[in-house]
C-alpha cells in the first residue's frame, strides 16, 4: 500500500505543511497552535512506523524510491561538444528520495525524538507561533537529510536544518543564546561549505554520464547518488584517464578529507567540538533534545553515506586515523565530563565521548562496526533526548542544573529521579539498555580490526561510569537544599515523553534485532567493495 | 605638408614677437621713467579711503555657476562645428540628431533658467 504513494515525500513535507498552517493561525490561539504542531509532528512518526513495518531488508529501499527531475539546467554547448555527438548538455539536480537500512533507523529516531520534543515544548514560554513554525520546518530538514538521494538535495536539506535551528537556539535559549546561535551557524556553515565543495568535485567528475535518447545523446552532470555510486565503483572509470569521469586520486583524497571535516564538525570530532558545548549549555531543553538527539547524527549518517559508500578506498586508508580520532573523542569527552559541575555540560561532553564510539564503528570497516555505529547513533539519540528532557524538567523547577547545587532530589521528585537514574545507566552502557548494544557492536567490530585501540577505548567507558554515577547520584541523593523542598514532581504531559523514551531505550536494549535486522543487507555492497580492495 | 609647416612657423613668429614686444617696450620704459616709490604710492587705491582688510576675498559663487554653464555650452560647440562643416554631406537625419543633441542642452539651459542661475541679485 505504501509503495503506491510518494510516502517519503509526504513524510518529509508534512511538517512543512504544518509550518504553513501554523503561520496562518492567529497568534493568540496558543493551544490551537500547539495542537497543530504536535499533530504534524506525530503524523510523520506514524508514517515512519508504517514505513518500518512494510520495509523488507532484502528489497532494500527500492520500493519507496522516488525520482523526479527537479532541475535540468542547460549548459552552453557551443565551445566544442559537437564532436561528442551531443544534442543536449545539462546539469541535473534530481529530486530523489530513498530509504535503506542505514537511513530508516535514523528516520524513526527523528520521528520519536521530534515527537517527544514537541511534547516537551511546554517549557517554551514565549512567541509560540514562531517557535512551532520553526520547529516543524526543522523537522522537514531532518527527514530530508536522511531520505535524500541526491547530493544537492541532501545539501539543501542539510542547510535547511541550519536556519530554524539558528532561530531556535538564538531566540528561546538561555543567557548566552545569541553567541551559541552564532557559533552554531558559523561552524555548521563551514562544515556545509566543505561538504558542498566535495560534492561539487564529485558531481563535476564522477557525476558525468551520457544517455542515449530518441533525439540524440544527452550529456549530463548529475548529483544523483546512484549515478555517483555506479560511476565511482566502475573500475573502468579509473583506468581511462581521458574520460571526464576520471577522478584522480588526489581529487578523491581532497573530496574525502573535505567530507571528513564537514561531517566531523557536525559529529563532532575532537578539535571541532567547541560550538556544540555552547549549544548544549545555552539552548532551550526541547531544542537541545533535537540537537543532541538528531542533528549530531547527521554527521555520522553523512560520513557513512558519502564517505564510506562513495569513497571506500579512501575510508580504508584512513580507517586508522578515524579510529584514533574516535578513541581520542571517547577519552577526551569522558575525562572532561568528569570535571564538569554543570549537568548540561556533563551531558555535552558525554555526547562527544559517545560520538567517538560511532566513529570507531565506522573505522572498523566491517558489518558489526557499521551496524554498531548506526545503533549507537540511535541509542544515543534516545538517551540524550531523555536526559535533556529531564534537564528541562529540573531547570523548570529548580532553576539550576548545577550538580553542586542540587541534591536529594529523590525525595521530592522521585519519578524524575528514577528516570534520570535509568537514563544515566543507559548512558554508561548497562546491559539490557540500548546504550550497551551500540557500544558492544562497535567495539566488537573494531576488535577485528584494531584490537589495541579497543583497550584504550574501553578505558573511556570506565570514565563514563565515573561521571554518570557521580553526577546522577549527587543530584538524586544526599542532603536536599531547603529551597528545593517545595518543588513538585512532573506533570503528566512531561511524564509521557519520559516514559515513552525510557520504554524505547529498554526495548532496544532487550531486543536489538528490531533495528539490526533492517540494517542487514544495506552494507552488503559496501562490504563487498571493501573486501575486493583488501583482496586486490 | 609644407604648407602647414609654414603656417605654424608664422604663428610661432607672431608668438615670439608678441612676447618680445612687451618685454622690450617695458624695458625701454624702465630706462625712461622715474622710479621713486614710497608707501603712499604703494597703498591700494580705494577712492582715497584707507583700505580695510584683505581684498583677495572669496567671490560670489555665482561666478562659478557661470563658469559651469560656459563649460557645458562651450563644449557643445566641439560637436557643433564638425557637424556644421560636414552638414551638407550628412543630410536631414543629421539635423534631427543635432536637434536632439541641442535639445538636451536646451533643457539644461531651461533648467538653469528656472533655477534662477541667471538672476543676478548682488555684486
Amino acid at each position, binding site marked *: 500500500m505504501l509503495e503506491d504513494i510518494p510516502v517519503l515525500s509526504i513524510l518529509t513535507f508534512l511538517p512543512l505543511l504544518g509550518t504553513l498552517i501554523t503561520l496562518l493561525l492567529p497568534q493568540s490561539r496558543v493551544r490551537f497552535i500547539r495542537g497543530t504542531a504536535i499533530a504534524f509532528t506525530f503524523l510523520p512518526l506514524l508514517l515512519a512506523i508504517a514505513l518500518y513495518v512494510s520495509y523488507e531488508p532484502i528489497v532494500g529501499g527500492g520500493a519507496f524510491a522516488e525520482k523526479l527531475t527537479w532541475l535540468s539546467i542547460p549548459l552552453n554547448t557551443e565551445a566544442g561538444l559537437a564532436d561528442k555527438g551531443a544534442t543536449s548538455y545539462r546539469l541535473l539536480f534530481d529530486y530523489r528520495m530513498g530509504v535503506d537500512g542505514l537511513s530508516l533507523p535514523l528516520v524513526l529516531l527523528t520521528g520519536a525524538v521530534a515527537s517527544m520534543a514537541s511534547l516537551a515544548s511546554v517549557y517554551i514560554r514565549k512567541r509560540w507561533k514562531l517557535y512551532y513554525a520553526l520547529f516543524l520546518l526543522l523537522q522537514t530538514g531532518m527527514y530530508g537529510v536522511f531520505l535524500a538521494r541526491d547530493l544537492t538535495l541532501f545539501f539543501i536539506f542539510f542547510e535547511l536544518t541550519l536556519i530554524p535551528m539558528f532561530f531556535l537556539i538564538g531566540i528561546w535559549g538561555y543567557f548566552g543564546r545569541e553567541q551559541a546561535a552564532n557559533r552554531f551557524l558559523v561552524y555548521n556553515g563551514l562544515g556545509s561549505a566543505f561538504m558542498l565543495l566535495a560534492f561539487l568535485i564529485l558531481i563535476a567528475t564522477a557525476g558525468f554520464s551520457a544517455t542515449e535518447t530518441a533525439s540524440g545523446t544527452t550529456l549530463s552532470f548529475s548529483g544523483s547518488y546512484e549515478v555517483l555510486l555506479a560511476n565511482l565503483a566502475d573500475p573502468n572509470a579509473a583506468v581511462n584517464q581521458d574520460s571526464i569521469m576520471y577522478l584522480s586520486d588526489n581529487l578523491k583524497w581532497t573530496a574525502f578529507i573535505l567530507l571528513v571535516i564537514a561531517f566531523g564538525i557536525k559529529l563532532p570530532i575532537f578539535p571541532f567540538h567547541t560550538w556544540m558545548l555552547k549549544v548544549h549549555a545555552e539552548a532551550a531543553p526541547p531544542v537541545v533534545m533535537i540537537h543532541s538527539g538528531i542533528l549530531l547524527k547527521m554527521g555520522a549518517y553523512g560520513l557513512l553515506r558519502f564517505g564510506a559508500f562513495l569513497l571506500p578506498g579512501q575510508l580504508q586508508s584512513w580507517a586508522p586515523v578515524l579510529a584514533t580520532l574516535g578513541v581520542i573523542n571517547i577519552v577526551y569527552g569522558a575525562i572532561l565530563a568528569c570535571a564538569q559541575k554543570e549537568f548540561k555540560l556533563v551531558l555535552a561532553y558525554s555526547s562527544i565521548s559517545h560520538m567517538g564510539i560511532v566513529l570507531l564503528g565506522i573505522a572498523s570497516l566491517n558489518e558489526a562496526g557499521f551496524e554498531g555505529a548506526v545503533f549507537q547513533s540511535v541509542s544515543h539519540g534516545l538517551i540524550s533526548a531523555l536526559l535533556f528532557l529531564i534537564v528541562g524538567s529540573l531547570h523548570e523547577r529548580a532553576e539550576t542544573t548545577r550538580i553542586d547545587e542540587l541534591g536529594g532530589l529523590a525525595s521530592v521528585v522521585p519519578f524524575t529521579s528514577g528516570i534520570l537514574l535509568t537514563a544515566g545507566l543507559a548512558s554508561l552502557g548497562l546491559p539490557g539498555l540500548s546504550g550497551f548494544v551500540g557500544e558492544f557492536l562497535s567495539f566488537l567490530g573494531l576488535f577485528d580490526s584494531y584490537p589495541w585501540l579497543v583497550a584504550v577505548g574501553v578505558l573511556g567507558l570506565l570514565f563514563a561510569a565515573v561521571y554518570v554515577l557521580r553526577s546522577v547520584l549527587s543530584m538524586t541523593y544526599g542532603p536536599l537544599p531547603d529551597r528545593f523542598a517545595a518543588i513538585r514532581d512532573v506533570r503528566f504531559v512531561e511524564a509521557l515523553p519520559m516514559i515513552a523514551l525510557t520504554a524505547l531505550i529498554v526495548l532496544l536494549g532487550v531486543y536489538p534485532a528490531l533495528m539490526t535486522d533492517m540494517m542487514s543487507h544495506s552494507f552488503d555492497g559496501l562490504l563487498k567493495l571493501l573486501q575486493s580492495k583488501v583482496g586486490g | 605638408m609644407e604648407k602647414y609647416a609654414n603656417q605654424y612657423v608664422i604663428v610661432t613668429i607672431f608668438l615670439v614677437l608678441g612676447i618680445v614686444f612687451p618685454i622690450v617696450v617695458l624695458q625701454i620704459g624702465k630706462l625712461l621713467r622715474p622710479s621713486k616709490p614710497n608707501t603712499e604710492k604703494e597703498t591700494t587705491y580705494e577712492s582715497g579711503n584707507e583700505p580695510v582688510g584683505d581684498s583677495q576675498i572669496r567671490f560670489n*559663487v555665482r561666478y*562659478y555657476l557661470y*563658469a*559651469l554653464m560656459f*563649460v*557645458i555650452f*562651450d*563644449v557643445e560647440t*566641439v*560637436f557643433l562645428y*564638425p557637424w556644421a562643416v560636414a552638414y551638407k554631406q550628412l543630410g536631414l537625419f543629421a539635423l534631427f540628431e543635432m536637434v536632439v543633441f541641442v535639445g538636451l542642452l536646451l533643457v539644461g539651459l531651461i533648467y538653469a533658467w528656472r533655477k534662477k542661475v541667471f538672476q543676478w541679485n548682488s555684486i
Partner: protein
Amino acid sequence: MTMLGSYLTLAAVLFCLGLYGVLTKRNAIIVLLSIELMLNAVNLNLVAFAKYGINASLRGQVFSLFTMTVAAAEAAVGIAVLISLYRRRATVNVDEYDELRR
C-alpha cells in the same frame, strides 16, 4: 617611431603626475585638476596613436574629442559637487572630508 615613443613617454609622465596629484594633494580643486591632467594624458596618447600608430586613422582624434567633452562635463559636475560641499563645510581640504569614516 621615435616620435610615437616620445609622445607616449610624455603622456605617461603626465598621467603619473595626475595620479600622484589625486593621491597626495589636499586641495580638492587640485585633486579635480589632477584628474583632468590624467585625462589629458590620455588625449595625448590617443592623438599620438592616431597619427603615428598602426592603421593611423582619425578614430583616435575623434575619441579624444569625446574625451575632452566628457572631461568637461565631469569637471563641471565635480566643481558643482564641491561647491555644494564647500557650503556645508567651508573648507576645500580633502583631509577634512572625513565625517563618513567611522
